[in-house]
């Protein structure tokens, strides 16, 4: 394996300082479950890694007014958080099927998003929950909607010196139901396809619909065209069949070691349809 230096700053300021000094040849490391694997595979060759593990500003999980998570929050902790299980089950479910216990014990939600795999399991739930990412760098702070965060496989809107510091989710509205579903070759593998749905129902009519599908396009997708069709209607079998067909039109998957493009297309439509049904059962 290529040699690299390893820095462990205690503050964000120190981290930015190091990143600027190392002039583009360094990378941040959170849990390392993506970055170390890619270095070992020879896909990345950084001269240095800058660890985010000692920076306390990136930690902590709170749910006073909505949910606020430091980017270094572990999937282990998301999986076990009772408030997330109760109010944001789509996120809890995604955390509990991501990889395996050893990975979840070190992998972070920030790392999952910043790695920007189209299959990132945290992305669909955070898309339907309309999460906001707080991004900070030497130039200051900005907020970005998760919808605008991903730019392509492995690419985000982050500058090289910038860090995602927090992820916030607005408070859950009454009558909301949500679900996350994933298909892998075996349980707890990287997704062949994944999907999340969030539904708000009033008097049997869908007032709000948020849909997302992953591993079926260069970035995790928000399915806005389809959301518009569902909103204002009663969710019935005919509508769900139409949704599944529309999903197939809106995705553009690839064939790789895990699956063919055609299978991904079909299964993605079915996952979205089932996620809506499950969300509907939980609404109210």
């Amino acid at each position: 394996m290529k040699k690299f230096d390893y820095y462990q700053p205690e503050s964000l300021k120190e981290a930015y300082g190091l990143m600027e000094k190392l002039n583009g040849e360094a990378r941040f490391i959170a849990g390392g479950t993506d970055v170390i694997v890619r270095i070992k595979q020879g896909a990345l060759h950084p001269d240095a890694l800058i660890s985010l593990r000692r920076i306390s500003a990136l930690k902590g999980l709170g749910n006073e007014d909505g949910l606020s998570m430091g980017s270094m929050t572990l999937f282990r902790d998301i999986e076990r958080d009772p408030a997330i299980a109760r109010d944001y089950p789509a996120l809890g479910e995604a955390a509990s099927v991501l990889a395996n216990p050893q990975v979840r014990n070190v992998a972070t939600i920030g790392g999952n998003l910043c790695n920007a795999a189209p299959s990132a399991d945290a992305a669909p739930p955070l898309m339907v929950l309309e999460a906001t990412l707080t991004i900070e760098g030497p130039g200051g702070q900005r907020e970005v909607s998760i919808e605008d965060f991903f730019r392509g496989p492995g690419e985000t809107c982050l500058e090289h010196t910038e860090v995602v510091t927090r992820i916030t989710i607005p408070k859950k509205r009454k009558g909301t139901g949500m679900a996350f579903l994933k298909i892998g070759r075996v349980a707890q593998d990287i997704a062949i396809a994944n999907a999340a749905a969030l539904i708000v129902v009033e008097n049997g009519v869908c007032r709000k619909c948020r849909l997302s599908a992953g591993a079926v396009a260069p970035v995790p997708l928000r399915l806005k065209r389809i959301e518009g069709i569902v909103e204002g209607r009663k969710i019935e079998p005919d509508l769900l069949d139409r949704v599944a067909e529309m999903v197939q039109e809106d995705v553009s998957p690839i064939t790789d070691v895990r699956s063919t493009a055609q299978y991904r297309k079909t299964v993605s439509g079915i996952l979205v349809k089932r996620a809506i049904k499950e969300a509907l059962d939980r609404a109210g």
Partner: protein
Amino acid sequence: MKKLIRFTLNGHEVSAEVESHRMLLEVLRNTFHLTGTKEGCGQGECGACTVLVDGLSVDSCLYPAFEVEGKSVTTIEGLVEEGSRLHPIQEAFVEHGGIQCGFCTPGMIMSTKALLDENPHPTDDEIKRGISGNLCRCTGYVQIVESIRKAAEKY
């Protein structure tokens, strides 16, 4: 880049001068000669390298050695009890055929320890989830699940 790191290893305070690109697995095997922890894939897929850091199971092949500073690490060698007696989990694996070639076993047992420490009476499903990060090419898992079930009875 090199640094002196200090941590607790199987209950003893230890220190070692370590290069910055080393993973915990290399330090355990090459510096401390604790070769019970195995390297299978080196990429987080197989769990042969599983150890506990502050009580939580991690893949030591992906764990940067510098991060272990100040922490407590338990390896398979640390499970042996007073008078060199095997740990109840190890005994259950021996008695119930949870071991064939033995390569996956140290990692499998460390994952079992992490599971039972948190949930002493797991269901079969919880056992399977608990060892989902550990591959075994020999046993077909049935005897491993059986061994863990038996170990839980004595936990």
